[in-house]
């Protein structure tokens, strides 16, 4: 292997998508629809390069590239080690996979793919940079691309959501920058490795403590921790269906990765452990987010919002793990955080893609409207069920592996209340996951029920109309009128108490109807096999990674021994 070529891969991974981001616009002057092809080629190439880089890192340790050859005291380093390459793989993999949806599901404009590639470049930059100021730059690049993606959704709501995100995101980035400035004042360097040496020896410790405090607040906002999460549900909900999976799976994940990187590489665990109240603050933020996020998720009506709040609680778990790392110096908890970052990214990408497919084909967006989905789209519903249970932490799936390590870390550190929150998070996650599953599988589409008449004696007569040939669907049951009760959307409730859902009526929702959504032609079937395939792949990967608990730990081992001494 040519080592100088490998050294070039980290900068290439960042520069290639950013440069490619200009192509859809440039080519768009001549050709109509080049965006998807450019993005597909770029992300596939990135994924292959990331895979190659991962194998190199696994075999030979970290790969470092010094930009411009300046020494690291002044210059910028790009570092691919075991921790960062995991996130790089996740980013490139998800970015490639989501394209399978956007091919037909949209949005299709060239500018969308410009923002898409810009976002990927920014996220890869966050993952690979070895410089705290450079990290800020990439945070801003990815945030700006995200604002653009969110605002490209339908109607004024998405503009509001993007504005909200813009304000809070910028404040958060500024907080981070202030923190970096304080640390820079105390140490005089911005390189992560140099900082690690300089911080414990710095004379003005108060500056560093203040800097860390600002950084925590900045990342708590970026990672959407309660109560600083408010930008996130509306951003996820209002972003176009094709963009939400990318944003939900990657943007907060990259920020959470950066936070973890700062904890273990820059400040270092021993130093933070001796910093007063650092551990308890991080732990509190994480635990409260786990609880608050779930409670908020349970009361949501919109599926995308529910999944968004679920992210609040799942990232709460990651932040809790960081807290355990600080408090107990626990390698186990850090492994758990890394696995949960990757696992949650895959799960959320799959779930938001499923939600997008359902919205595209039936216009169903609320939990109630998902009634009877299992019969309409058995494959998507099945994949969604697998992903939801993986999120709950049912073994053998990736959600369980992450939770196992985090819980084990908490027990090893003898942080019993934290351990209790982590174990209970299973039940809390189940609360909203089961709600959706029950709708999909065990609630007949309400339109069918309302068409069946009002008494139990007459229900059998029209059972045949509904049948799609398999006997299993020929007898949806009437389940009384309390279906709509407190959950039903008011406008949709019909007289006899059943909710008229698009799913029940079998109406195919036209995704191209909205003005801002898409300008180009429409397809006969809004759901392509590629869209279904990518969801199924996500489900399979989620289960397959469930068996990789030991592999993950082996892979991270060299990194852990290094940062935990």
């Amino acid at each position, binding site marked *: 292997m040519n080592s100088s070529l490998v050294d070039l891969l980290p900068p290439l991974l960042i520069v290639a998508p950013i440069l490619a981001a200009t192509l859809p616009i440039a080519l768009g002057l001549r050709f109509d629809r080049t965006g998807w092809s450019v993005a597909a080629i770029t992300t596939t190439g990135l994924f292959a390069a990331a895979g190659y880089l991962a194998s190199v890192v696994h075999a030979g340790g970290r790969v470092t590239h010094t930009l411009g050859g300046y020494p690291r005291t002044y210059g910028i380093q790009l570092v691919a080690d075991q921790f960062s390459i995991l996130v790089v793989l996740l980013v490139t993999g998800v970015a490639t996979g989501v394209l399978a949806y956007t091919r037909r599901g949209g949005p299709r404009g060239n500018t969308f793919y410009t923002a898409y590639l810009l976002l990927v470049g920014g996220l890869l930059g966050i993952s690979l940079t070895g410089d705290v100021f450079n990290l800020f730059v990439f945070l801003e690049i990815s945030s700006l691309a995200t604002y653009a993606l969110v605002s490209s959704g339908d109607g004024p709501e998405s503009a509001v959501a993007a504005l909200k995100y813009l304000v809070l995101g910028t404040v958060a980035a500024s907080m981070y920058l202030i923190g970096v400035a304080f640390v820079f004042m105390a140490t005089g360097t911005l390189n992560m490795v140099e900082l690690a040496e300089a911080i414990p020896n710095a004379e003005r410790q108060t500056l560093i403590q203040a800097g860390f405090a600002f950084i925590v607040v900045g990342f708590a906002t970026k990672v959407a921790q309660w109560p600083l999460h408010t930008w996130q549900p509306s951003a996820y909900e209002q972003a176009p269906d094709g963009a939400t999976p990318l944003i939900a799976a990657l943007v907060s994940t990259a920020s959470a990765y950066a936070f973890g990187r700062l904890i273990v590489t820059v400040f270092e665990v021993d130093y933070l452990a001796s910093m007063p109240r650092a551990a308890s603050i991080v732990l509190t933020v994480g635990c409260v987010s786990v609880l608050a996020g779930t409670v908020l998720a349970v009361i949501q009506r919109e599926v995308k919002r529910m999944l968004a709040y679920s992210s609040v609680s799942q990232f709460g778990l990651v932040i809790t793990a960081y807290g355990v790392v600080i408090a107990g110096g626990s390698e186990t908890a850090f492994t758990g955080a890394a696995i949960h970052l990757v696992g949650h990214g895959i799960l959320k990408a799959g779930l938001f893609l499923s939600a997008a497919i359902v919205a595209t084909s039936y216009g169903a967006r609320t939990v109630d409207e998902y009634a009877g989905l299992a019969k309409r789209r058995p494959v998507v519903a099945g994949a969604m069920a697998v992903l939801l249970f993986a999120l709950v932490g049912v*073994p053998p799936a990736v959600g369980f592996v992450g939770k196992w390590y985090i819980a084990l870390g908490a*027990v090893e550190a003898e942080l019993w209340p934290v351990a209790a929150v982590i*174990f209970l998070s299973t039940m809390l996650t189940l609360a909203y996951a089961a709600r959706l599953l*029950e709708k999909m*599988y065990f609630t007949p589409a309400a339109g069918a029920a309302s068409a069946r008449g009002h008494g*139990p004696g007459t229900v059998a007569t029209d059972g045949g109309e509904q049948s799609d040939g398999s006997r299993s669907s020929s007898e949806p*049951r009437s389940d009384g009128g309390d279906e709509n009760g407190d959950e039903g959307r008011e406008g949709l409730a019909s007289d006899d108490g059943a909710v008229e859902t698009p799913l029940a009526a079998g109406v195919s929702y036209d995704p191209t109807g909205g003005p801002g959504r898409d300008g180009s032609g429409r397809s006969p079937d809004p759901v392509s096999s590629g869209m279904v395939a990518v969801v199924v792949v996500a489900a399979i990967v989620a289960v397959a990674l469930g068996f990789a608990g*030991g592999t993950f730990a082996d892979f991270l081992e060299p990194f852990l021994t290094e940062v935990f001494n």
Partner: protein
Amino acid sequence: MVADLRPLAAVLVSAVAIVLIVASHRRPNLREGWSVLAAVGKFGIVASMLPAVMSGTVYRWSLYESTGIRFLPGVDFALRADPLGILFALLASFLWIFTSFYAAGYMRGLDEHAQTRFFASFAASLSAAVGIAFAANLVTIFVFYELLSLVTYPLVAHNEDDEARIAGRKYLTYTFFGGGVFLLAGTVMVYWLTASVNGDPTLAFESGGMEALATAAQAEPGFAQAAFFLLIAGFGVKAALMPLHSWLADAMVAPTPVSGLLHAVAVVKSGAFGVARVILDVYGPGLIHDLPLDVPGIGEVGLNIPVAIVAAFTLTAASIIAMRKDHLKRRLAYSTTAQLSYIVLGLSMLHPYAMVGALFHIPAHAFAKLTLFFCAGAIHVETHTDYISDMAGIGKRMPLTLSAFTIGALGMAGLPPIAGFVSKFYMLIGSGYMGGEYWIFAGTLLLSGVLNIAYFWPVVYTAFFESEDRHDAKPVLEFPRGGIFESYGAGAEGQKEHVAADGGPSSADRSGSESESESDAAKSNPAPAETDDSGATDADVEDDDYDYAVDRYPSDADVPAGDHVSAVDHHGDHDDHLTGGPPAGGWPRHSPIGESTWLMLAPIAIIATGAVVLGVVPDHAVFLDLITHIVEGVFGVDSFDQLQGLSLEEALEVMSE
């Protein structure tokens, strides 16, 4: 330890069947064929391991050794077929064969919806149950335990009505709380404790208890005790220990084959089996006995005592609750709750004899309770009768079914010559050897036998010795607590004799529910003057004025067509009372052969026979042999004779030598 693929094959054979079942969803005969084939195959694989396991071989399959993939650091995803695992797997796979015939008959008889989902989930449940049986360590058993909760959920929520959905929610909540919270927490703590010994964590089961855990428990007794109770609570949810039992009765909304095989055998026994694993193979009787729990005001007691107290309380309380349940399946569910606690109680007494009794109660209860559920299901399919108060005289309509029911009921009560007697006998001997305060547990066992009679005898009595038009309310069971001065069943005072004499199915037989019988009485005309002395047995008597549900919907009684199924709520409280009960002319008399389809009658007859065989010749029916092997392994002796006549302390000394 012999590496072998068969433990894995036994788990996977029904997982493969899921795919085939789903693929052949348009051809019901083929689909049910796959179920039967998978059941026979699973039983064949398990049985093929039996001879070698009896002679001391342990078959083992491990993911790491076969593929190099490590599930978690220090934890292998491994299966092993040891005597205890074989016991449970053999039982579940053997009973599945007959249940798959029965399920075909049941589901077709009711023309249920979503049958493919039903049979696929059923096969998946058996996979998970055998996985629990063969799991070689705590994490593997946790994986299958969670999967079992997952795949039985569709069976509980099968009906897709509000009641089923609520039961499903409750089921998921309870089982995931047990599995995902308690069991996982306990597993993590055991992992952490064993890691503290020499830095090498282990979770693998060892017959007689894990050594590393015993060492760690000396250093950290408090955490070891917490882990013990977490594990017991985790498994106790599925074993329906009070106060974590209430999901079981609600889960009876599931179709009867599910209630039979899963909620009387596979699922609930997986809880009891897990308790057995914890007591025998994780902590071991020695450690449990020597790890005293300091109770303020009482002093030090063994870890087993709180478990035994909970089990004793559960079996008494559940029996008392069962007496007042008029819905047959619910009564059976509370009976299951009580009987599972026998197993837990026997295990927690720690004495070798009590253990033999407890472990033997796993198959003994399985055979008897499966018979009972099959009978309840057959009655439901044939007559749509769910409430015991509607069952007067049903013995002549379904003679074979009700005879089998009687056998099962005797087994529950622990009367010879049914299997339940043998297990209870051993448990009583065991508690006798324990001496001291353990007499209270022996007393509970005896009391529970009486209570079993008290709630099963009325069913048998009303079925065989009462008739549709002449039967009484059962005062202790049905009247308001404290009693009333007159039989509320009589619509108006002084009319009782008159009403009974005319043979019409008047209000007197609606004894199940006061309000209903009152309104019925109001509706029904005064009895016609026609007097028929042989009314009790004469099926010709008619009363056209009486407004039975079966008159309005004649198909309910005997037409097996499916178009009315969704109208029948066969699980609610008393809302659906009108759908059951005898037809207008009383029960027609049927021969034992023709009372139902052979798909249901044959399994009933075979399982009931099995319960008798286990009770008459336990030594020759493989289970008891297997169980003595298990107990010999736990106490480290070559022959059970060495344990004969020893007190627990002496047995533990033998064990430590």
